[in-house]
């Protein structure tokens, strides 16, 4: 039997063990807990669905990822970087994947992958940080302080703080998971979620980190984080350390992070949104792009494909969908250094082994003949994909409330 979530019975620890700790034992023997053992959606239905977000930081070159191999403009504007027609992995009459994406090709042909062309927003920013913040908040060109995933959890579970709804594997917390009500669980390496020292010291420490009223906002924040660390760390650490899988996630950091996501899903931590990133601005390919981009795509595909296979192996494929995005695509014309500069519209990917996903191509590929000052004109507002994930996949009906404006979902999932 799996190790259960056992933490100190703090105020929140007690709540949490009610929610998750008894799940596998079954609440049947404890009728007083039966209403708490599952997260219930607004209509009171069981909904175990999970959204995993993968961010490709640095601005992935969409044109060389989803290749318009029949397009003369493409070959004219990218004399050294264009993917030759005979190397693209064909998925339609005029579209093929980059040759590194064999794993995506297989998922696509199995109907487990949706590709959404030309995602972006009006008045695009070509700054990494600004554009990424727009994708994080879901409010382009606005001063929104909370993240879209954070607001989603605020809307979905508005009554009281619930721990670990949002899980973010990162060095520092992503803006995307910043929530008004719920403190995200953020870590890089699960082994770090550990307070070293003997029992006596740990006891004294647990008293030192108790939450107290303070007028100092910084101290209040520290106390909240300390409380979260105290109650969740053992579970995450043990789950990741104990996890064994025969599936190879490749050699990237993203692979390791997604493996930990699988471990935590398997252990039943109960998070609804897992937020991960291919980190370090890796996709910012200004110079000598070809080799580098080829490797980056291969590593990312290994990681995502590994995760999809592992989740199916665990029998949890029906519960999980993965959404992949990047803050912008790249300039259509290659630069003098056999690289590409910051651009605009770029494809998004959604994966699921649920059987609910409508695999295929969505939207229209942006025109390469009609550019906006050298950049692609977006054809799909990225928030329509967010709306699909919120409404169709996570089955929360009011995506407009979360996104601060109405956006029609794309029917990426059967509803």
């Amino acid at each position, binding site marked *: 039997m799996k190790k259960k979530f056992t933490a100190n019975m703090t105020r929140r620890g007690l709540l949490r063990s009610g929610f998750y700790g008894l799940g596998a034992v079954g609440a049947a023997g404890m009728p007083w807990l039966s209403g708490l053992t599952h997260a219930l959606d607004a209509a009171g239905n069981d909904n175990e669905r999970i959204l995993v977000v993968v961010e490709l930081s640095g601005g992935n070159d969409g044109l060389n990822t989803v290749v318009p191999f029949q397009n003369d403009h493409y070959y004219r504007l990218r004399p050294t970087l264009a993917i030759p027609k005979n190397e693209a992995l064909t998925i339609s009459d005029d579209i093929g994947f980059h040759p*590194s994406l*064999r*794993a995506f090709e297989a998922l696509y042909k199995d109907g487990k992958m949706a590709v959404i062309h030309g995602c972006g927003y009006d008045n695009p*920013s*070509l*700054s*990494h*940080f*600004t554009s990424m913040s727009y994708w994080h908040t879901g409010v382009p060109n606005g001063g929104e302080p909370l993240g879209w995933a954070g607001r989603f959890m605020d809307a979905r579970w508005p009554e009281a703080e619930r721990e670990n709804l949002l899980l973010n594997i*990162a*060095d*520092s*917390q992503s803006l995307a998971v910043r929530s008004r009500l719920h403190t995200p*669980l*953020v*870590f*890089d390496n699960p082994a*770090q979620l*550990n*307070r*070293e*020292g003997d029992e006596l*010291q740990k006891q*004294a420490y647990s*008293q*030192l*980190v108790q939450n*107290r009223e303070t007028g*100092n*906002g*910084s*101290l209040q*924040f*520290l*106390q909240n*984080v*300390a409380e*979260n*660390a105290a109650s*969740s*760390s053992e579970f995450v650490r043990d789950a990741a350390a104990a996890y064994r899988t025969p599936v*190879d996630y*490749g*050699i990237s950091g993203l692979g390791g992070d997604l493996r930990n996501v699988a471990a935590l899903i398997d252990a039943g931590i109960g998070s609804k949104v897992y937020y991960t990133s291919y*980190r*370090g*601005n890796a996709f910012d390919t*200004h*110079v*000598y792009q070809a*080799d580098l981009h080829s*490797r980056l795509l291969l590593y990312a*595909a*290994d990681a995502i494909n590994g995760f999809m296979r592992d989740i199916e192996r665990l029998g949890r494929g029906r519960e999980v969908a993965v959404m992949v995005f990047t803050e912008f695509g790249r300039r259509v014309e290659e630069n*003098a*250094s056999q*690289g590409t*500069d*910051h651009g605009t519209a770029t494809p998004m990917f959604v994966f699921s082994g649920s059987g609910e996903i409508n695999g295929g191509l969505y939207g229209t590929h942006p025109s390469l003949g009609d550019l906006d*000052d050298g950049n692609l004109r977006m054809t799909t507002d990225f928030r329509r994909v967010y709306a699909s994930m919120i409404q169709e996949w996570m089955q929360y009906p009011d995506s407009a409330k979360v996104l601060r404006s109405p956006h029609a979902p794309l029917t990426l999932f059967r509803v």
Partner: protein
Amino acid sequence: MKLLGRNLPRFAGLGVPRVAECCVVAVLSLAAAPAMASSPYTAPSSWVNDLSPVSELDWNYERAAHLLERAGFGGTPEQIEHLADMTPQQAVDHLVDFHALDADPLPDFELSGLFDPAMDPFPNSRAEAVRQARDNGESMGAKVAHGESRPIQPVVNKFFYGLRGNEMEARRLATWWADRMVVTERPLQEKMALFWHGHFATTDTKVRDHRKMLKQLNLFHENAVGNFGELLLAVTQDPAMLTFLDNAENIKAHPNENFGRELMELFSLGEGNYTEQDIREASRAFTGWTDEKLQFVIREEDHDDGVKTVLGQTGNFDGEDIIEILLQQESTAEFMSAKLYRFFVRDTLSADLQYQLADVLRRNNYELAPFLKTVFLSRDFYSNESVATQFKSPVQLMVSTYRKMGLQRMPTIPDFNAATGNLGQRLLYPPNVAGWAGGSTWITPATLLQRGNLMRDVLFPDVEGFLARDPMPGIYRRVEERLAQGMNITQATTEGDSGASMLADSDEAYNTRYGAYMGYVVASETVIQIPRFPADLSLSAMLRDARVDDVSAAVAYLETRFLRHPLSDSDMAVLEQFLRDELGADELSWRSEETEIALKRVLHLLLSAPEYQLS
């Protein structure tokens, strides 16, 4: 008395006013008639957003401690008292006008002698080195070995030697810098160098040349509190920056905008104060700017001498003209003053305060010293909103801990770079061109726990374990073990079955993993080793010197010495009880090693408290 006592430093032996809760009222009334108006930990609420200077009557130990904490990395009680004995103006001048102190006595960085002219310029990637080898029969001075089973192997080995050697040297360089922060008598010079390193964030991951990183670091040290305009120009001509933002690739025929964009967005104007057109035009002015042999050069044939229009001005501008135009913009003064303020004071500032600060910077023609003096003297700097509200960066956490301990040299066990890197900040490796986000982003459940664990590593260093540990990364060690078992290179280097790892070994002309292993071995023999030693710290001696002899005085002393935000009374009671239980007595016995261990255990708790993360 009780109420006041909550707001006063607990330990009587430290600071002015020298008052503890148990002490007599007479001392308070003597020393602190002016301090009554503003007790050491709290300031009048009217001080927020007030840039007018604090008066001598407001000056005390706590405020001097806050000044040293922010304008430097904190210090010992003696260093704080030294500042507290001055007037506020003198104390601020002492820190800002550090050039008036004796010539910089700290030794220069000692290079290991890795540099090899044949390896300059260094290939962009392993693939590039292999292409050179195929085209020319050699690369980086390494020749293709004809007739052997892996003819390009020597080139790949050399490539990884260059890569790993540089990494090791950069690690030494960062360690050297950290040591400066710990021992310097000019703490603001180091704090500002750290600011510039985060502002003009250049990472050796991309630059791959420790000599350029050293040159840039020297630039930051020399211009730490000089003129921002001069520094901005110097940075645009700095080899590390030119490399980092690809300006060597910015040529007339095909401008590269990376440099122009970051110059406007992150280094001067701030987002929203320029157009895409401004970036494109400004980038043309920097075409042909590049570096050769560590020197800035302009390649006239690559420079676009045509007419450009940038921020409303038109002319056949070059890069220097663009810097001049940027400095003329109101938004540059606003952006830079706000960024400095956030680094030194606090995260949020009102629009009005931002305007006032920008005005100070502009009126002083971007001279930083008068700007910093205005900030460090201001009532706002000592207001309740500013004091003990900043999250220490990982580097600040480590350096200030060592300084508060009064160490004479920076311990290298635990490893400084590994420690701060684990917490999200590695010197010479900012995460991207925007630098470290800072503020609350330093703090996550994982980093908060690790901060406490790191303090344990400092107080109870595992010296034997550290020295016994093989620094060789696991993958190379496994390769080495398999080779020692007699496996061939292919067998010894095979791991995993993912597409990625197959790609890495797909070329039979050489073996990438073997090359990485060989490069590591040769590099570690070439680079000077970092001397390893733990903190030289005796808490028993520290407390004995302070005439502390019982449990509650010891806890009070350590709290006052190390924390900028007091612990709650109940936390103090927990720590006292912990120490009492450890010692089995109320009195401290100096002869016993157990006393030292018990004191370090209680200090570990103190340095793990949420309050200790606040500066």
